[in-house]
Protein backbone atom coordinates (compact mmCIF):
# COMPACT_ATOMS: atom_id res chain seq x y z
CA UNK A 1 0.00 0.00 0.00
CA UNK A 2 1.51 3.24 -1.08
CA UNK A 3 1.45 6.37 1.01
CA UNK A 4 -0.73 8.11 -1.52
CA UNK A 5 -3.44 5.47 -1.13
CA UNK A 6 -3.29 5.88 2.62
CA UNK A 7 -3.74 9.59 2.35
CA UNK A 8 -6.73 9.06 0.08
CA UNK A 9 -8.44 7.07 2.78
CA UNK A 10 -7.96 9.64 5.51
CA UNK A 11 -11.31 11.25 6.29
CA UNK A 12 -11.75 14.72 4.85
CA UNK A 13 -12.07 17.52 7.31
CA UNK A 14 -15.74 18.30 7.83
CA UNK A 15 -16.66 21.69 6.56
CA UNK A 16 -18.93 23.88 8.62
CA UNK A 17 -21.78 23.50 6.15
CA UNK A 18 -21.83 19.72 6.22
CA UNK A 19 -22.73 19.61 9.93
CA UNK A 20 -26.09 21.14 9.28
CA UNK A 21 -27.83 18.09 7.91
CA UNK A 22 -25.23 15.45 7.26
CA UNK A 23 -22.02 14.02 8.62
CA UNK A 24 -19.20 12.31 6.87
CA UNK A 25 -18.31 9.14 8.67
CA UNK A 26 -15.98 6.29 8.02
CA UNK A 27 -18.93 4.51 6.42
CA UNK A 28 -19.82 7.36 4.13
CA UNK A 29 -22.08 10.34 4.33
CA UNK A 30 -24.89 9.88 6.83
CA UNK A 31 -27.74 12.24 7.35
CA UNK A 32 -31.09 12.32 9.00
CA UNK A 33 -33.91 12.54 6.54
CA UNK A 34 -36.88 14.70 7.34
CA UNK A 35 -39.78 12.56 8.49
CA UNK A 36 -41.96 13.73 5.62
CA UNK A 37 -39.35 12.53 3.19
CA UNK A 38 -39.36 9.01 4.53
CA UNK A 39 -41.17 6.61 2.28
CA UNK A 40 -44.61 5.95 3.83
CA UNK A 41 -44.05 2.28 3.17
CA UNK A 42 -40.95 2.38 5.33
CA UNK A 43 -42.84 4.07 8.14
CA UNK A 44 -45.59 1.47 8.08
CA UNK A 45 -43.05 -1.31 8.12
CA UNK A 46 -41.65 -0.02 11.39
CA UNK A 47 -44.83 -0.52 13.44
CA UNK A 48 -44.80 -3.59 15.61
CA UNK A 49 -44.70 -7.19 14.57
CA UNK A 50 -46.93 -6.97 11.53
CA UNK A 51 -45.28 -6.81 8.15
CA UNK A 52 -47.33 -4.30 6.19
CA UNK A 53 -46.39 -4.92 2.63
CA UNK A 54 -48.65 -5.31 -0.38
CA UNK A 55 -49.51 -8.91 -1.03
CA UNK A 56 -48.11 -8.71 -4.55
CA UNK A 57 -44.77 -7.34 -3.35
CA UNK A 58 -42.09 -8.55 -5.75
CA UNK A 59 -38.41 -7.64 -5.92
CA UNK A 60 -36.68 -7.78 -9.27
CA UNK A 61 -33.66 -10.03 -8.70
CA UNK A 62 -31.58 -7.58 -10.72
CA UNK A 63 -32.27 -4.85 -8.16
CA UNK A 64 -30.88 -6.79 -5.23
CA UNK A 65 -27.49 -5.50 -4.24
CA UNK A 66 -25.70 -8.68 -3.22
CA UNK A 67 -22.48 -6.85 -2.39
CA UNK A 68 -24.04 -4.48 0.12
CA UNK A 69 -23.92 -5.79 3.69
CA UNK A 70 -26.54 -3.28 4.91
CA UNK A 71 -29.81 -4.99 4.09
CA UNK A 72 -29.49 -8.46 5.50
CA UNK A 73 -33.14 -9.21 6.08
CA UNK A 74 -35.15 -10.97 3.47
CA UNK A 75 -38.81 -11.49 2.92
CA UNK A 76 -39.98 -14.93 1.95
CA UNK A 77 -43.33 -16.59 1.47
CA UNK A 78 -44.42 -19.59 3.47
CA UNK A 79 -47.31 -21.11 1.64
CA UNK A 80 -49.99 -21.01 0.37
CA UNK A 81 -49.14 -24.55 -0.65
CA UNK A 82 -46.79 -25.30 2.21
CA UNK A 83 -47.64 -28.57 3.97
CA UNK A 84 -47.43 -26.97 7.42
CA UNK A 85 -49.82 -24.11 6.85
CA UNK A 86 -53.02 -26.09 7.42
CA UNK A 87 -54.65 -25.38 4.13
CA UNK A 88 -54.04 -22.41 1.91
CA UNK A 89 -52.57 -19.97 4.41
CA UNK A 90 -49.74 -17.85 3.08
CA UNK A 91 -47.41 -16.19 5.54
CA UNK A 92 -44.99 -13.47 4.48
CA UNK A 93 -42.06 -13.54 6.86
CA UNK A 94 -39.21 -11.12 7.19
CA UNK A 95 -36.13 -13.07 8.17
CA UNK A 96 -32.80 -12.03 9.58
CA UNK A 97 -30.86 -15.22 9.12
CA UNK A 98 -33.17 -17.75 10.72
CA UNK A 99 -34.81 -15.26 13.07
CA UNK A 100 -38.31 -14.09 12.24
CA UNK A 101 -38.77 -10.33 12.47
CA UNK A 102 -42.15 -9.34 11.06
CA UNK A 103 -44.91 -11.47 9.68
CA UNK A 104 -48.02 -10.95 7.64
CA UNK A 105 -50.63 -13.64 7.20
CA UNK A 106 -52.09 -13.41 3.69
CA UNK A 107 -55.50 -15.03 3.39
CA UNK A 108 -58.32 -15.24 0.90
CA UNK A 109 -57.18 -18.25 -1.11
CA UNK A 110 -60.23 -20.22 0.03
CA UNK A 111 -62.68 -17.34 -0.15
CA UNK A 112 -65.85 -18.57 -1.79
CA UNK A 113 -68.27 -15.82 -0.80
CA UNK A 114 -70.31 -17.93 1.59
CA UNK A 115 -71.82 -14.89 3.28
CA UNK A 116 -73.07 -13.71 -0.10
CA UNK A 117 -74.36 -17.18 -0.89
CA UNK A 118 -76.12 -17.18 2.46
CA UNK A 119 -78.19 -14.18 1.38
CA UNK A 120 -79.53 -16.23 -1.51
CA UNK A 121 -80.48 -19.35 0.44
CA UNK A 122 -83.63 -19.75 2.53
CA UNK A 123 -83.37 -20.28 6.25
CA UNK A 124 -84.23 -23.96 5.75
CA UNK A 125 -81.30 -24.26 3.33
CA UNK A 126 -78.89 -22.08 5.29
CA UNK A 127 -77.51 -24.96 7.32
CA UNK A 128 -76.01 -26.59 4.24
CA UNK A 129 -74.09 -23.41 3.58
CA UNK A 130 -72.76 -22.53 7.02
CA UNK A 131 -71.78 -26.10 7.87
CA UNK A 132 -69.03 -25.89 5.25
CA UNK A 133 -67.34 -22.87 6.81
CA UNK A 134 -65.36 -24.37 9.67
CA UNK A 135 -65.28 -27.86 8.22
CA UNK A 136 -63.70 -29.40 11.32
CA UNK A 137 -66.52 -28.32 13.59
CA UNK A 138 -69.62 -28.32 11.37
CA UNK A 139 -72.10 -28.82 14.20
CA UNK A 140 -71.01 -25.54 15.76
CA UNK A 141 -71.64 -23.59 12.57
CA UNK A 142 -75.08 -25.12 12.18
CA UNK A 143 -75.88 -24.57 15.83
CA UNK A 144 -74.95 -20.90 15.93
CA UNK A 145 -76.90 -20.23 12.74
CA UNK A 146 -79.93 -22.10 14.05
CA UNK A 147 -79.77 -20.30 17.39
CA UNK A 148 -79.71 -16.94 15.61
CA UNK A 149 -82.72 -17.88 13.48
CA UNK A 150 -84.59 -19.16 16.54
CA UNK A 151 -83.88 -15.96 18.41
CA UNK A 152 -85.27 -13.91 15.53
CA UNK A 153 -88.30 -16.19 15.33
CA UNK A 154 -88.72 -16.12 19.09
CA UNK A 155 -89.24 -19.87 19.41
CA UNK A 156 -87.99 -22.23 22.07
CA UNK A 157 -86.66 -25.64 21.17
CA UNK A 158 -87.66 -28.78 23.11
CA UNK A 159 -85.44 -29.95 25.92
CA UNK A 160 -84.37 -33.11 24.13
CA UNK A 161 -83.25 -31.11 21.10
CA UNK A 162 -81.13 -28.93 23.39
CA UNK A 163 -79.41 -31.94 24.89
CA UNK A 164 -78.93 -33.66 21.54
CA UNK A 165 -77.25 -30.49 20.32
CA UNK A 166 -75.00 -30.42 23.37
CA UNK A 167 -74.08 -34.07 22.85
CA UNK A 168 -73.13 -33.50 19.22
CA UNK A 169 -71.27 -30.27 20.01
CA UNK A 170 -69.14 -31.86 22.70
CA UNK A 171 -68.34 -34.90 20.56
CA UNK A 172 -67.48 -32.52 17.75
CA UNK A 173 -65.20 -30.57 20.08
CA UNK A 174 -63.39 -33.82 20.88
CA UNK A 175 -63.01 -34.73 17.20
CA UNK A 176 -61.71 -31.26 16.40
CA UNK A 177 -59.22 -31.29 19.25
CA UNK A 178 -57.87 -34.76 18.46
CA UNK A 179 -57.29 -33.60 14.92
CA UNK A 180 -55.42 -30.63 16.37
CA UNK A 181 -53.23 -33.05 18.33
CA UNK A 182 -52.65 -35.02 15.13
CA UNK A 183 -51.62 -32.06 12.99
CA UNK A 184 -49.68 -30.44 15.80
CA UNK A 185 -47.75 -33.66 16.26
CA UNK A 186 -47.11 -33.94 12.55
CA UNK A 187 -45.83 -30.38 12.31
CA UNK A 188 -43.44 -30.92 15.19
CA UNK A 189 -42.13 -34.20 13.87
CA UNK A 190 -44.22 -36.70 15.84
CA UNK A 191 -45.58 -38.62 12.89
CA UNK A 192 -47.08 -41.39 14.98
CA UNK A 193 -49.31 -38.84 16.69
CA UNK A 194 -50.79 -37.99 13.34
CA UNK A 195 -51.93 -41.57 12.86
CA UNK A 196 -53.28 -41.78 16.42
CA UNK A 197 -55.21 -38.54 16.05
CA UNK A 198 -56.90 -39.60 12.84
CA UNK A 199 -57.72 -42.96 14.46
CA UNK A 200 -59.57 -41.35 17.38
CA UNK A 201 -61.31 -38.94 15.04
CA UNK A 202 -62.56 -41.88 13.02
CA UNK A 203 -64.41 -43.20 16.10
CA UNK A 204 -66.34 -39.95 16.31
CA UNK A 205 -66.94 -39.52 12.59
CA UNK A 206 -68.38 -43.03 12.46
CA UNK A 207 -70.85 -42.03 15.17
CA UNK A 208 -71.70 -38.80 13.34
CA UNK A 209 -72.39 -40.82 10.22
CA UNK A 210 -74.72 -43.11 12.13
CA UNK A 211 -76.67 -40.15 13.50
CA UNK A 212 -76.70 -37.75 10.57
CA UNK A 213 -75.90 -39.87 7.55
CA UNK A 214 -72.76 -37.89 6.77
CA UNK A 215 -69.26 -37.83 8.17
CA UNK A 216 -68.84 -34.10 7.67
CA UNK A 217 -71.06 -31.17 6.64
CA UNK A 218 -74.04 -32.77 8.34
CA UNK A 219 -76.80 -30.13 8.17
CA UNK A 220 -78.14 -31.94 11.22
CA UNK A 221 -78.83 -29.03 13.56
CA UNK A 222 -81.65 -27.02 12.02
CA UNK A 223 -83.76 -24.06 13.09
CA UNK A 224 -86.27 -25.52 15.50
CA UNK A 225 -84.28 -28.51 16.71
CA UNK A 226 -82.36 -31.23 14.95
CA UNK A 227 -83.06 -33.09 11.72
CA UNK A 228 -83.66 -36.53 13.20
CA UNK A 229 -83.77 -38.27 16.53
CA UNK A 230 -80.75 -40.20 17.75
CA UNK A 231 -80.67 -43.71 16.26
CA UNK A 232 -81.29 -46.86 18.27
CA UNK A 233 -78.24 -47.91 20.21
CA UNK A 234 -76.72 -44.46 20.35
CA UNK A 235 -76.12 -44.80 24.07
CA UNK A 236 -73.89 -47.82 23.57
CA UNK A 237 -72.01 -46.10 20.75
CA UNK A 238 -71.33 -43.01 22.83
CA UNK A 239 -70.46 -45.07 25.89
CA UNK A 240 -67.93 -47.03 23.83
CA UNK A 241 -66.30 -43.84 22.60
CA UNK A 242 -65.95 -42.23 25.99
CA UNK A 243 -64.72 -45.47 27.49
CA UNK A 244 -61.92 -45.80 24.96
CA UNK A 245 -60.81 -42.18 24.82
CA UNK A 246 -59.48 -41.53 28.37
CA UNK A 247 -56.93 -44.34 28.02
CA UNK A 248 -55.83 -42.98 24.68
CA UNK A 249 -55.46 -39.49 26.17
CA UNK A 250 -53.19 -40.95 28.85
CA UNK A 251 -51.12 -42.44 26.05
CA UNK A 252 -50.82 -39.00 24.48
CA UNK A 253 -49.74 -37.69 27.86
CA UNK A 254 -46.87 -40.13 28.01
CA UNK A 255 -46.09 -39.56 24.35
CA UNK A 256 -45.99 -35.78 24.59
CA UNK A 257 -46.50 -34.19 27.97
CA UNK A 258 -43.79 -36.16 29.73
CA UNK A 259 -41.42 -36.21 26.80
CA UNK A 260 -38.36 -33.94 27.12
CA UNK A 261 -37.93 -33.39 23.37
CA UNK A 262 -41.54 -32.29 22.96
CA UNK A 263 -41.31 -29.95 25.90
CA UNK A 264 -38.11 -28.33 24.68
CA UNK A 265 -39.67 -27.89 21.28
CA UNK A 266 -42.82 -26.23 22.63
CA UNK A 267 -42.07 -24.56 25.96
CA UNK A 268 -41.48 -20.84 25.78
CA UNK A 269 -42.14 -20.81 22.04
CA UNK A 270 -44.62 -18.39 20.51
CA UNK A 271 -45.52 -16.64 23.75
CA UNK A 272 -48.43 -14.24 23.77
CA UNK A 273 -49.38 -12.29 26.87
CA UNK A 274 -52.83 -11.92 28.34
CA UNK A 275 -53.04 -8.24 27.38
CA UNK A 276 -51.98 -8.92 23.80
CA UNK A 277 -54.47 -11.74 23.42
CA UNK A 278 -57.35 -9.62 24.70
CA UNK A 279 -56.33 -6.66 22.57
CA UNK A 280 -56.16 -8.81 19.45
CA UNK A 281 -59.60 -10.30 20.19
CA UNK A 282 -58.18 -13.81 20.45
CA UNK A 283 -60.62 -16.26 21.97
CA UNK A 284 -60.82 -19.93 22.78
CA UNK A 285 -57.77 -21.99 23.76
CA UNK A 286 -55.40 -19.19 22.73
CA UNK A 287 -56.93 -16.76 25.20
CA UNK A 288 -57.27 -19.43 27.89
CA UNK A 289 -53.64 -20.50 27.48
CA UNK A 290 -52.60 -17.03 28.67
CA UNK A 291 -54.48 -17.53 31.92
CA UNK A 292 -57.81 -15.84 31.20
CA UNK A 293 -60.59 -18.19 32.32
CA UNK A 294 -62.98 -17.11 29.56
CA UNK A 295 -65.29 -19.74 28.15
CA UNK A 296 -68.69 -18.78 26.79
CA UNK A 297 -70.11 -22.10 27.99
CA UNK A 298 -69.37 -21.06 31.57
CA UNK A 299 -69.53 -17.27 31.40
CA UNK A 300 -72.49 -16.72 29.09
CA UNK A 301 -74.24 -20.11 29.13
CA UNK A 302 -76.36 -21.13 26.18
CA UNK A 303 -78.26 -24.38 25.49
CA UNK A 304 -78.13 -26.18 28.86
CA UNK A 305 -74.49 -25.63 29.74
CA UNK A 306 -75.54 -24.07 33.02
CA UNK A 307 -76.85 -27.49 34.09
CA UNK A 308 -73.67 -29.49 33.53
CA UNK A 309 -70.46 -29.42 35.49
CA UNK A 310 -67.11 -28.85 33.88
CA UNK A 311 -63.93 -26.90 34.50
CA UNK A 312 -62.52 -24.15 32.34
CA UNK A 313 -58.93 -25.12 31.52
CA UNK A 314 -56.39 -22.33 31.57
CA UNK A 315 -52.66 -22.12 31.00
CA UNK A 316 -50.14 -19.78 32.56
CA UNK A 317 -47.49 -18.83 30.02
CA UNK A 318 -49.34 -18.64 26.73
CA UNK A 319 -46.80 -20.63 24.72
CA UNK A 320 -47.16 -23.49 22.29
CA UNK A 321 -47.08 -26.04 25.10
CA UNK A 322 -49.89 -24.30 26.98
CA UNK A 323 -52.09 -24.23 23.94
CA UNK A 324 -51.46 -27.94 23.44
CA UNK A 325 -52.14 -28.72 27.09
CA UNK A 326 -55.31 -26.64 27.21
CA UNK A 327 -56.77 -28.49 24.24
CA UNK A 328 -55.74 -31.91 25.54
CA UNK A 329 -57.45 -31.28 28.85
CA UNK A 330 -60.50 -29.77 27.19
CA UNK A 331 -61.04 -33.18 25.62
CA UNK A 332 -61.20 -34.62 29.14
CA UNK A 333 -63.71 -31.95 30.19
CA UNK A 334 -65.82 -32.68 27.12
CA UNK A 335 -65.84 -36.37 28.05
CA UNK A 336 -67.03 -35.33 31.51
CA UNK A 337 -69.87 -33.35 29.94
CA UNK A 338 -70.80 -36.25 27.64
CA UNK A 339 -71.05 -38.54 30.70
CA UNK A 340 -73.54 -36.12 32.25
CA UNK A 341 -75.49 -35.83 29.00
CA UNK A 342 -75.77 -39.62 28.82
CA UNK A 343 -77.26 -39.68 32.31
CA UNK A 344 -79.64 -36.82 31.82
CA UNK A 345 -80.80 -37.02 28.19
CA UNK A 346 -84.52 -36.25 28.47
CA UNK A 347 -87.25 -37.84 26.40
CA UNK A 348 -89.55 -35.88 24.15
CA UNK A 349 -89.51 -34.15 20.81
CA UNK A 350 -86.29 -33.68 18.93
CA UNK A 351 -87.68 -30.64 17.12
CA UNK A 352 -90.22 -28.00 17.92
CA UNK A 353 -93.85 -28.72 17.17
CA UNK A 354 -94.30 -25.19 15.85
CA UNK A 355 -95.71 -26.06 12.44
CA UNK A 356 -94.32 -22.83 11.05
CA UNK A 357 -90.78 -24.17 10.95
CA UNK A 358 -91.27 -27.92 11.32
CA UNK A 359 -92.62 -30.04 8.49
CA UNK A 360 -95.37 -32.54 9.31
CA UNK A 361 -94.22 -36.06 10.17
CA UNK A 362 -93.61 -38.40 7.25
CA UNK A 363 -96.58 -40.59 8.13
CA UNK A 364 -99.05 -37.74 7.96
CA UNK A 365 -98.03 -36.84 4.41
CA UNK A 366 -99.42 -40.10 3.05
CA UNK A 367 -102.87 -39.58 4.54
CA UNK A 368 -103.43 -35.82 4.60
CA UNK A 369 -103.53 -33.48 1.62
CA UNK A 370 -102.99 -30.49 3.92
CA UNK A 371 -99.87 -32.07 5.35
CA UNK A 372 -98.53 -32.66 1.84
CA UNK A 373 -99.16 -29.04 0.84
CA UNK A 374 -97.65 -27.83 4.08
CA UNK A 375 -94.54 -29.93 3.55
CA UNK A 376 -94.25 -28.78 -0.07
CA UNK A 377 -94.60 -25.10 0.76
CA UNK A 378 -92.16 -25.28 3.65
CA UNK A 379 -89.43 -26.68 1.45
CA UNK A 380 -90.10 -24.57 -1.65
CA UNK A 381 -90.94 -21.22 -0.10
CA UNK A 382 -89.35 -21.62 3.29
CA UNK A 383 -90.63 -19.90 6.41
CA UNK A 384 -90.64 -16.18 6.96
CA UNK A 385 -88.64 -14.69 9.81
CA UNK A 386 -89.72 -11.41 11.45
CA UNK A 387 -87.55 -8.41 10.64
CA UNK A 388 -84.75 -7.67 13.05
CA UNK A 389 -81.12 -8.28 13.73
CA UNK A 390 -79.37 -10.41 16.27
CA UNK A 391 -75.87 -11.53 17.26
CA UNK A 392 -75.44 -14.94 18.82
CA UNK A 393 -72.13 -16.44 19.91
CA UNK A 394 -71.11 -19.88 21.09
CA UNK A 395 -67.81 -21.43 22.14
CA UNK A 396 -66.42 -23.41 19.24
CA UNK A 397 -63.21 -25.47 19.59
CA UNK A 398 -61.35 -22.46 18.20
CA UNK A 399 -63.02 -19.70 20.17
CA UNK A 400 -66.01 -17.45 19.89
CA UNK A 401 -68.10 -18.40 16.89
CA UNK A 402 -70.63 -15.65 16.28
CA UNK A 403 -73.49 -15.21 13.87
CA UNK A 404 -74.84 -11.77 13.00
CA UNK A 405 -78.13 -12.21 11.22
CA UNK A 406 -80.34 -9.50 9.74
CA UNK A 407 -83.82 -10.37 8.53
CA UNK A 408 -86.04 -8.16 6.40
CA UNK A 409 -89.10 -10.27 7.12
CA UNK A 410 -88.64 -12.63 4.20
CA UNK A 411 -87.64 -16.26 3.85
CA UNK A 412 -83.98 -15.50 3.19
CA UNK A 413 -81.51 -13.71 5.45
CA UNK A 414 -80.91 -10.11 4.45
CA UNK A 415 -77.39 -10.31 5.83
CA UNK A 416 -75.58 -13.30 7.23
CA UNK A 417 -72.23 -12.77 8.87
CA UNK A 418 -70.26 -15.45 10.66
CA UNK A 419 -67.61 -14.29 13.09
CA UNK A 420 -65.02 -16.98 12.53
CA UNK A 421 -62.70 -17.48 15.49
CA UNK A 422 -59.76 -18.48 13.28
CA UNK A 423 -60.01 -15.19 11.41
CA UNK A 424 -59.34 -13.18 14.56
CA UNK A 425 -56.90 -15.68 16.05
CA UNK A 426 -54.71 -15.46 12.98
CA UNK A 427 -53.90 -11.86 13.91
CA UNK A 428 -51.88 -13.21 16.84
CA UNK A 429 -49.46 -14.90 14.48
CA UNK A 430 -47.10 -11.91 13.95
CA UNK A 431 -46.89 -11.32 17.71
CA UNK A 432 -46.19 -14.97 18.44
CA UNK A 433 -43.62 -15.44 15.70
CA UNK A 434 -41.62 -12.27 16.28
CA UNK A 435 -38.10 -12.99 17.47
CA UNK A 436 -38.42 -16.74 17.15
CA UNK A 437 -36.82 -19.09 14.69
CA UNK A 438 -38.43 -20.05 11.43
CA UNK A 439 -38.64 -23.67 12.56
CA UNK A 440 -40.55 -22.55 15.64
CA UNK A 441 -42.83 -20.59 13.36
CA UNK A 442 -44.18 -23.87 12.05
CA UNK A 443 -44.99 -24.92 15.60
CA UNK A 444 -46.68 -21.59 16.24
CA UNK A 445 -48.89 -21.78 13.15
CA UNK A 446 -49.86 -25.28 14.17
CA UNK A 447 -50.67 -24.24 17.73
CA UNK A 448 -53.09 -21.60 16.45
CA UNK A 449 -55.13 -24.44 14.92
CA UNK A 450 -56.51 -22.31 12.11
CA UNK A 451 -59.13 -23.71 9.78
CA UNK A 452 -58.89 -21.83 6.54
CA UNK A 453 -62.48 -22.50 5.62
CA UNK A 454 -63.38 -20.55 8.74
CA UNK A 455 -60.87 -17.78 8.00
CA UNK A 456 -61.89 -17.14 4.42
CA UNK A 457 -65.53 -18.24 4.38
Amino acid at each position, binding site marked *: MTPTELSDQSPPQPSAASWVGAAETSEGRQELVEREETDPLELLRERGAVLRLPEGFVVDPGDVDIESPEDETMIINLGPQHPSTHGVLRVMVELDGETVLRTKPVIGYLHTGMEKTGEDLMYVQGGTNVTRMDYLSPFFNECVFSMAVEQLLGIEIPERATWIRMLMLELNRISSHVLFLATNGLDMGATSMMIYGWRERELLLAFFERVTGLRMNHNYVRPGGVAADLPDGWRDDVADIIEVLPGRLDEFDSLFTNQPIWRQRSEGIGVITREQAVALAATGPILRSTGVPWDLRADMPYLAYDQVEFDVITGTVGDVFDRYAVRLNEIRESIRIVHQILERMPNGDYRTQDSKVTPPPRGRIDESMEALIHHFKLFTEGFKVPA*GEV*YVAIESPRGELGCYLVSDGGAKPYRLHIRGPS*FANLQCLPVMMRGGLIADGIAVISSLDPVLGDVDR
Partner: protein
Amino acid sequence: MTDAGPTDGEAPAPEPEPEPERHAGALVTRSRGQEVLHPTLDTYLDTITALWDEGFDMCVDVTAADYLERPPRDLPPDIAPERFELVANLLAMDPPRRVRVRLQVPEAAPVVPSIWERYPGVEAYEREVYDMFGIRFEGHPDLTRILMPEDWEGHPLRKDYPIGRVPVQFKAAPPTR
Protein backbone atom coordinates in the same frame (compact mmCIF):
# COMPACT_ATOMS: atom_id res chain seq x y z
CA MET B 1 -113.42 -1.22 29.59
CA THR B 2 -109.75 -0.99 30.05
CA ASP B 3 -107.87 1.36 27.76
CA ALA B 4 -110.74 3.59 26.76
CA GLY B 5 -109.04 6.81 27.80
CA PRO B 6 -110.48 9.66 29.83
CA THR B 7 -114.26 9.82 29.87
CA ASP B 8 -114.85 13.07 31.71
CA GLY B 9 -114.14 15.14 28.60
CA GLU B 10 -111.15 16.79 30.17
CA ALA B 11 -107.95 16.56 28.15
CA PRO B 12 -105.27 14.75 30.17
CA ALA B 13 -102.16 16.65 31.04
CA PRO B 14 -99.59 15.83 28.35
CA GLU B 15 -97.08 13.49 29.81
CA PRO B 16 -93.53 14.80 29.61
CA GLU B 17 -91.61 13.12 26.81
CA PRO B 18 -89.47 10.48 28.44
CA GLU B 19 -85.81 11.24 27.99
CA PRO B 20 -84.51 8.79 25.39
CA GLU B 21 -82.26 6.18 26.95
CA ARG B 22 -78.59 6.81 26.35
CA HIS B 23 -75.52 4.72 26.99
CA ALA B 24 -71.99 5.98 26.42
CA GLY B 25 -73.46 9.05 24.76
CA ALA B 26 -75.41 7.07 22.18
CA LEU B 27 -79.10 6.33 21.80
CA VAL B 28 -80.15 2.87 22.87
CA THR B 29 -82.54 0.40 21.29
CA ARG B 30 -83.14 -3.23 22.11
CA SER B 31 -83.17 -5.98 19.55
CA ARG B 32 -84.45 -9.32 20.87
CA GLY B 33 -83.23 -8.31 24.30
CA GLN B 34 -79.76 -7.28 23.09
CA GLU B 35 -78.54 -3.77 23.74
CA VAL B 36 -77.80 -1.75 20.59
CA LEU B 37 -76.15 1.68 20.61
CA HIS B 38 -76.62 4.19 17.81
CA PRO B 39 -73.88 6.83 17.75
CA THR B 40 -73.41 9.26 14.90
CA LEU B 41 -70.29 9.57 12.79
CA ASP B 42 -69.13 12.42 15.02
CA THR B 43 -69.70 10.65 18.33
CA TYR B 44 -68.59 7.18 17.20
CA LEU B 45 -65.06 7.40 18.62
CA ASP B 46 -66.32 8.97 21.86
CA THR B 47 -68.81 6.16 22.31
CA ILE B 48 -66.15 3.54 21.70
CA THR B 49 -63.80 5.27 24.15
CA ALA B 50 -66.55 5.49 26.77
CA LEU B 51 -67.34 1.79 26.33
CA TRP B 52 -63.65 0.95 26.67
CA ASP B 53 -63.56 2.88 29.93
CA GLU B 54 -66.58 0.92 31.12
CA GLY B 55 -64.66 -2.32 30.77
CA PHE B 56 -65.50 -3.54 27.29
CA ASP B 57 -62.07 -5.06 26.76
CA MET B 58 -62.63 -6.83 23.51
CA CYS B 59 -64.04 -5.86 20.15
CA VAL B 60 -64.99 -9.31 18.95
CA ASP B 61 -66.45 -8.42 15.60
CA VAL B 62 -66.82 -5.59 13.11
CA THR B 63 -69.03 -6.08 10.12
CA ALA B 64 -71.44 -4.08 7.99
CA ALA B 65 -74.73 -4.36 6.18
CA ASP B 66 -75.93 -2.75 2.99
CA TYR B 67 -79.51 -1.47 3.36
CA LEU B 68 -79.86 -0.58 -0.31
CA GLU B 69 -83.25 -2.30 -0.56
CA ARG B 70 -84.53 -0.40 2.50
CA PRO B 71 -85.85 -3.27 4.58
CA PRO B 72 -87.57 -2.32 7.82
CA ARG B 73 -85.09 -1.65 10.58
CA ASP B 74 -85.21 -0.50 14.12
CA LEU B 75 -83.61 2.92 14.58
CA PRO B 76 -84.16 5.67 17.15
CA PRO B 77 -86.17 8.58 15.69
CA ASP B 78 -83.19 10.94 15.85
CA ILE B 79 -80.96 8.73 13.72
CA ALA B 80 -81.36 9.16 9.99
CA PRO B 81 -81.07 5.88 8.09
CA GLU B 82 -78.26 5.66 5.57
CA ARG B 83 -77.37 3.04 3.03
CA PHE B 84 -74.54 1.36 4.95
CA GLU B 85 -74.47 0.34 8.55
CA LEU B 86 -71.31 -0.52 10.42
CA VAL B 87 -71.86 -3.05 13.20
CA ALA B 88 -69.32 -3.52 15.99
CA ASN B 89 -69.79 -6.10 18.73
CA LEU B 90 -68.04 -5.34 21.99
CA LEU B 91 -67.55 -7.75 24.85
CA ALA B 92 -66.85 -7.12 28.52
CA MET B 93 -65.54 -9.99 30.59
CA ASP B 94 -66.21 -8.87 34.12
CA PRO B 95 -69.17 -9.02 34.48
CA PRO B 96 -69.85 -10.80 31.18
CA ARG B 97 -71.96 -8.62 28.92
CA ARG B 98 -72.17 -7.57 25.30
CA VAL B 99 -73.12 -4.42 23.50
CA ARG B 100 -73.57 -3.77 19.81
CA VAL B 101 -72.76 -0.45 18.15
CA ARG B 102 -74.54 0.31 14.89
CA LEU B 103 -73.29 3.29 12.93
CA GLN B 104 -75.01 4.80 9.90
CA VAL B 105 -72.56 5.39 7.03
CA PRO B 106 -73.70 7.54 4.10
CA GLU B 107 -73.30 6.19 0.59
CA ALA B 108 -71.84 9.47 -0.72
CA ALA B 109 -68.85 9.42 1.62
CA PRO B 110 -68.35 5.97 3.14
CA VAL B 111 -65.53 6.97 5.45
CA VAL B 112 -65.46 6.00 9.12
CA PRO B 113 -62.83 6.65 11.79
CA SER B 114 -60.93 3.47 12.56
CA ILE B 115 -60.99 2.12 16.12
CA TRP B 116 -57.72 0.28 15.53
CA GLU B 117 -55.84 2.46 18.01
CA ARG B 118 -58.24 1.35 20.74
CA TYR B 119 -58.83 -2.24 19.65
CA PRO B 120 -55.88 -3.57 17.59
CA GLY B 121 -57.83 -6.76 16.99
CA VAL B 122 -60.18 -5.06 14.54
CA GLU B 123 -57.47 -4.71 11.94
CA ALA B 124 -58.51 -7.74 9.92
CA TYR B 125 -62.21 -7.01 10.41
CA GLU B 126 -61.97 -3.46 9.16
CA ARG B 127 -60.00 -4.68 6.17
CA GLU B 128 -62.74 -7.21 5.50
CA VAL B 129 -65.45 -4.52 5.68
CA TYR B 130 -63.42 -2.35 3.31
CA ASP B 131 -62.97 -5.27 0.96
CA MET B 132 -66.59 -6.37 0.99
CA PHE B 133 -68.44 -3.03 1.28
CA GLY B 134 -66.00 -0.34 0.24
CA ILE B 135 -66.27 1.50 3.54
CA ARG B 136 -62.94 3.19 4.23
CA PHE B 137 -61.43 3.55 7.68
CA GLU B 138 -59.43 6.65 8.55
CA GLY B 139 -56.42 5.81 10.68
CA HIS B 140 -56.23 2.15 9.74
CA PRO B 141 -52.57 1.14 9.30
CA ASP B 142 -52.95 -1.12 6.27
CA LEU B 143 -56.29 -0.69 4.55
CA THR B 144 -56.02 -3.14 1.68
CA ARG B 145 -58.18 -5.94 0.36
CA ILE B 146 -57.97 -9.02 2.53
CA LEU B 147 -60.12 -11.73 0.96
CA MET B 148 -60.44 -10.67 -2.66
CA PRO B 149 -57.44 -10.28 -5.00
CA GLU B 150 -55.76 -6.87 -4.81
CA ASP B 151 -56.80 -5.88 -8.32
CA TRP B 152 -60.45 -6.88 -7.86
CA GLU B 153 -63.09 -4.38 -8.91
CA GLY B 154 -66.21 -3.83 -6.87
CA HIS B 155 -67.24 -4.81 -3.38
CA PRO B 156 -68.98 -8.19 -3.37
CA LEU B 157 -71.28 -7.92 -0.36
CA ARG B 158 -72.96 -4.75 -1.62
CA LYS B 159 -76.51 -5.41 -2.68
CA ASP B 160 -75.96 -3.96 -6.15
CA TYR B 161 -73.21 -6.50 -6.80
CA PRO B 162 -75.10 -9.41 -8.29
CA ILE B 163 -74.25 -13.03 -7.86
CA GLY B 164 -72.65 -14.58 -10.90
CA ARG B 165 -71.50 -11.32 -12.39
CA VAL B 166 -68.10 -12.73 -13.20
CA PRO B 167 -68.26 -14.69 -16.44
CA VAL B 168 -67.00 -18.23 -16.09
CA GLN B 169 -65.20 -19.58 -19.08
CA PHE B 170 -65.54 -23.21 -19.96
CA LYS B 171 -63.07 -24.39 -22.48
CA ALA B 172 -63.88 -27.18 -24.84
CA ALA B 173 -62.27 -30.45 -23.89
CA PRO B 174 -59.00 -30.85 -25.72
CA PRO B 175 -59.11 -33.31 -28.58
CA THR B 176 -57.87 -36.70 -27.55
CA ARG B 177 -55.72 -37.14 -30.64
